[in-house]
């Protein structure tokens, strides 16, 4: 299955939570499968921190560029593109195609860079809704996402209750804990204190805050893996014995550096700052005196919540808060707590029970069928 990125241009200004207005913007997206005649079989996939609209398949000229959720989405897979019309969309502020710091600001003719406004989960969801209008889809069979993507699915359910039948909220949380925000802030400081950052105007200085991005990714990466998994994979293993130097000696050190450096080669620092801020700001209960059940009071979709036992970034307890709020609000909710050793990353991996829960859940969604 070859995927093909597409671009939708919007001229209607988008008011943002910050008070800023995005006058015009583009959204990059991909679709898989076929929209049925009643336009009732569409599933929107929301991405997490560093992913994109490239959810499944490869590109014709890039056979190794596999979509980030290809184990989940495709013909005969849990999100079966023989039955569903699946849409992957790249969020505003990203660096993979949709309008963001690395695209051109029409007002100046130059890259947005640090001038790109801060966006929230709700802003993203509003922009997704416009993409649906553009595609002529009034109601989604489901919105689905993991981690930050799960937060978007939850925001979708409360913000557009008439446009969504099901929400699949995976490895998410109703808001970030102080510890989550703390990790994000350390990552941001790593970027912002890099001398090459130039207050976000690094492109004009023909440089990239690579060191800061590397450290930011290393910090993030630690939170994606469980302690046990890291122990099993690396333990105290050494590369070549002790050298009594600060070069990477332990395997975990070289692994994190490798991951960080790889990431800094393709990810934009201004995007990283904005995406972590969107995470920090997400808190639907804030406007309801902390009452999540009231914040989700508008939800009419059936909700499937999934967590993973060893996820300490967004632990099962955080998912259970969502479940409790939906239960207290008399909403339709199903909750699966998947036994998995991998930590937060488990939502991207092949766990038989996890994939089976999603497959069976989607099997019974009405209105599907190409």
């Amino acid at each position, binding site marked *: 299955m070859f995927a093909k990125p597409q671009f939708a241009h919007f001229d209607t200004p988008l008011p943002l939570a910050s008070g800023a207005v995005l006058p015009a913007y583009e959204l990059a997206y991909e679709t898989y499968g076929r929209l049925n005649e009643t336009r009732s079989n569409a599933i929107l996939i929301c991405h997490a921190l560093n992913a994109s609209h490239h959810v499944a398949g490869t590109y014709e000229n890039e056979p190794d560029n596999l979509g980030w959720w290809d184990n989940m989405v495709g013909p005969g897979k849990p999100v079966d593109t023989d039955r569903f019309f699946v849409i992957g969309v790249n969020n505003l502020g990203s660096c993979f195609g949709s309008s963001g710091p690395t695209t051109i600001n029409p007002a100046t003719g130059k890259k947005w860079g640090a001038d790109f406004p801060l966006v929230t989960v709700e802003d993203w969801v509003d922009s997704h809704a416009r993409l649906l209008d553009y595609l002529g889809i009034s109601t989604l069979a489901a919105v689905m996402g993991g981690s930050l993507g799960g937060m978007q699915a939850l925001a979708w359910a409360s913000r557009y209750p008439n446009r969504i039948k099901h929400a699949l909220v995976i490895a998410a949380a109703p808001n970030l804990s102080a510890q989550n925000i703390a990790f994000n802030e350390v990552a941001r400081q790593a970027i912002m204190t890099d001398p090459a950052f130039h207050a976000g105007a690094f492109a004009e200085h023909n440089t990239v805050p690579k060191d800061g991005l590397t450290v930011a990714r290393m910090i993030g990466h630690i939170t994606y893996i469980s302690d046990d998994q890291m122990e099993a994979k690396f333990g105290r293993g050494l590369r070549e014995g002790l050298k009594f130097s600060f070069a990477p000696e332990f395997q975990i050190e070289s692994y994190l550096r490798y991951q960080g450096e790889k990431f800094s080669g393709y990810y934009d620092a201004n995007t990283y700052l904005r995406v972590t801020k969107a995470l920090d700001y997400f808190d639907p209960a804030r406007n309801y005196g902390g009452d999540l059940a009231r914040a989700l009071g508008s939800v009419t979709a059936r909700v499937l919540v999934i967590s993973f036992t060893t996820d300490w970034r967004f632990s099962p307890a955080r998912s*259970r808060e969502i479940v409790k709020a939906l239960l207290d609000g008399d909403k339709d*909710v199903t909750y699966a707590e998947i036994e998995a050793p991998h930590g937060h990353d488990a939502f991207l991996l092949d766990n038989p*029970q996890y994939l*089976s829960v999603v497959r*069976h859940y989607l*099997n019974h969604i009405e209105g599907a069928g190409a």
Partner: protein
Amino acid sequence: MITRADFDIITSWVPPKSRVLDLGCGDGSLLRYLADSKQVRGYGIENDEPSLIKCIDNRVNVIQTNLESGMKEMADHSFDVVILSQTLQAIKHTEAVVSEMLRVGRGAIVTFPNFGYWKHRLQIGLAGKMPVSDDLPYQWYDTPNVHLFTIHDFEEFCRQRGYRINNRRVLAGDNEATFLPNLTGTLALYKISAG
């Protein structure tokens, strides 16, 4: 094994359109039946992975958690009825669970295999062996049951705690056991409320 007979009795005790919690809901077939026949808004609690998938296939709301701790976060009287079907005998903290059921629910339905059934008595009394039957199909060493009890035991338990017994039915197989139910009954069904 849940049979059609106890389904029907439980269903008859559940008010239409009520909010129901089924503890240890198994494959969700009771909740499905209640939703179809009485437009009940149901939620199940189940911790077994294959059963969870079956609940999803039955299109019922199911929460994967331990039923002994899963009620903790639920609000007082947030359900009309809390059901515990043929599971009480397999629960460690009997008292705590029944008391939680009556906190979370306005009423509770409890069903259990009657240990006082005459064939069980014979196996213990004459053969001197732990009973094995259709309703207690396990050997002593592999049984999930940790508290076996009789109809008399349960009624005394309710009396001592001030629980009101609103309804009682006793089945012998698919039929009603009306004569000496603690001797002839295999499955007991109770609807109780707090005082």
